[in-house]
């Protein structure tokens, strides 16, 4: 296809049909790219069941055109159905750049779409820019578990990148923005499918969702026991925070795997990230380096976590933490 222009993002919705926050983040990233492509446009693919009603919201967040692929077949994500839907949209939108969230589904869709379009992909991209000389996308991402940053250009159009969660801040929705809504018939033949959706199991979250919490309190291997994690839960209850863990702590079974933060775990960017008895390995930091204020408690003054923190206490958490909690109790609620 010749004449490619602009940026296409792939929206994500939750089971109740609400746009996921990544959608706004992608639109914000796309807007900056489109602006530096001398005002080319931003389009969005809205694929799902009963999602058409959300098109105006996507426009309010920054899209100029929304391509709606609304069909019961898209109720649940399967690459086998979402890839052809995305391709049908791409054929109409003909973008230079396609941005997808590096979410559980997006990290499957991105490479699948890239290979289907016979073009290169950058995954878990933390920054996207347009190279002024080539007009093409340059994508920055972490490598070697976060030790290094790699910047990549693309040899063929379109350029596909999955974007790290929370790497961009969504714009405030502007209800007055106007745009075009185009319905796309992806005509995916489900009877030929090799894969099948079986079921979805909700995992109940106790307390506040980690990704939404203002304070995340994370324990590492140095906590040494699951009882110590109970103290973190107490602190979380007091402060309205959520509890996270390092892989070493989860693998030691001090807590569940589902609260693990990092390159292979969840990604958070709270106001306050309280890192207790964890070393700050790059693979862990990949999941929390977007936090506004990292506060570390560690007995090793050389621990890497101090290099990434705003405040720190060097000491044994068994002494530091009870006093910290007690003082917070004395101070009362903020």
């Amino acid at each position, binding site marked *: 296809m010749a004449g490619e222009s602009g940026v296409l993002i792939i929206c994500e919705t*939750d*089971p109740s049909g609400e746009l996921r926050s990544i959608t706004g983040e992608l639109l914000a990233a796309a807007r900056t790219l489109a602006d530096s492509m001398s005002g080319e446009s931003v389009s969005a693919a809205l694929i799902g069941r009963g999602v058409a009603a959300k098109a105006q919201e996507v426009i309010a967040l920054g899209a100029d055109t929304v391509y709606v692929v609304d069909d019961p077949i898209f109720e649940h*994500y*399967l690459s*086998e159905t979402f890839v052809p839907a995305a391709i049908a949209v791409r054929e109409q939108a003909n973008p230079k750049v396609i941005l997808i969230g590096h979410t*559980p589904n997006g990290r*499957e869709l991105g490479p699948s779409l*890239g*290979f289907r379009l*016979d*073009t*290169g*992909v*950058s*995954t878990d991209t933390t920054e996207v820019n347009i190279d002024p000389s080539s007009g093409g996308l340059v994508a920055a991402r972490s*490598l*070697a*578990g976060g*030790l*290094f*940053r*790699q*910047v*990549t250009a*693309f*040899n063929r159009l379109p350029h596909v990148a999955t974007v790290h969660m929370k790497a961009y801040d969504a714009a405030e929705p502007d209800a007055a923005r106007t745009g075009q809504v185009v319905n796309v018939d992806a005509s995916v033949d489900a009877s030929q499918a*090799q*894969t*099948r*959706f*079986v*079921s*979805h*199991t*909700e*995992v109940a979250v106790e307390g506040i969702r980690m990704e939404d919490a203002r*304070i995340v309190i994370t324990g590492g291997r140095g906590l040494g026991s699951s009882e110590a994690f109970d103290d973190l839960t107490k602190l979380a209850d007091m402060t309205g925070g959520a509890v996270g863990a390092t892989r070493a702590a989860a693998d030691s079974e001090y807590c569940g795997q*589902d609260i693990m933060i990092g390159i*292979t775990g969840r990604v958070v960017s709270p106001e306050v990230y309280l890192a207790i008895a964890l070393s700050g390995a790059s693979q862990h930091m990949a999941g929390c380096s977007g936090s506004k204020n990292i*506060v570390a*408690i560690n007995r090793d003054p050389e621990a*890497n976590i101090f*290099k*990434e923190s*705003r*405040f*720190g*206490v*060097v*000491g044994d958490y068994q*002494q*530091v*933490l*009870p*006093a*910290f909690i007690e*003082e*917070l109790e004395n*101070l009362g609620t*903020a």
Partner: protein
Amino acid sequence: MHIIVTVKQVPDPEAPQSSFTVDRAAKKVVVASSVPSTVSDMDVYATEAALLVKDVVPDTTVSVLSLGDSHVMDVVKRPLAMGADALYLVQDAELAGGDAMAIAHALAAAIRKIGPFDLIMAGRQSADLDQGIVATGVAMLLGVPVMTNAVRVAMNGDAIQIDRIVDDGIDTIEAKLPAVVTVSNELGQPRYATMRGIMAARRVDPTVWSRADLETLESSEALTTPVDLFEPEKSSNVEIIEGENAADAGRLLAQRLRTERLI
């Protein structure tokens, strides 16, 4: 049933960070010679997933495939010591150093040469590149479905069923065979090598191929161009809160965070 596990040999990511540096001009990571090689950790989970299927499906053969340029036999035989049966090594520095698409092409060509398969198991992402691309590419090039980030695998009749973690829970999905499945660490602790497994692994002669042996290799063209590789700067300006003792420092930290309206 024939399962192929793709296994990448990588420099041990747990080695001290100072043993990894960058050659910015060459846009390459330089690894100190003291760093041992290891199996990329997610590939150990992929091996475990393959062996879980082998445990329940009679007459299952698990083949291990690795593309690299300096395979260490003890490393690439680890999956065999865990219970896999055969080892295929493709040795070519240029292919191994290619981008995700080039690596996927090479692995797909090697798989065609190995012969018919029912399942391919791979890691969700490699420990050195963290891409999570190659296995999907292999699936696309071989024209079979892919399901990524499995945290549970099981046969359901003649389909492979997996659980994968999604935003608000777990999706259970399944694919007809042949298929590609990538595996994540939440699968659970991989089995250890047994003494018998280690002895058996020693007796396995790997099949070693070079690029010239990959008759069906379609392309080794890169689809991406490296522009830069560098170490991000860390601005270390931590304020260490000190007190008369650790408990005192804990109290002062609480006060400080309150003054800053952080907690």
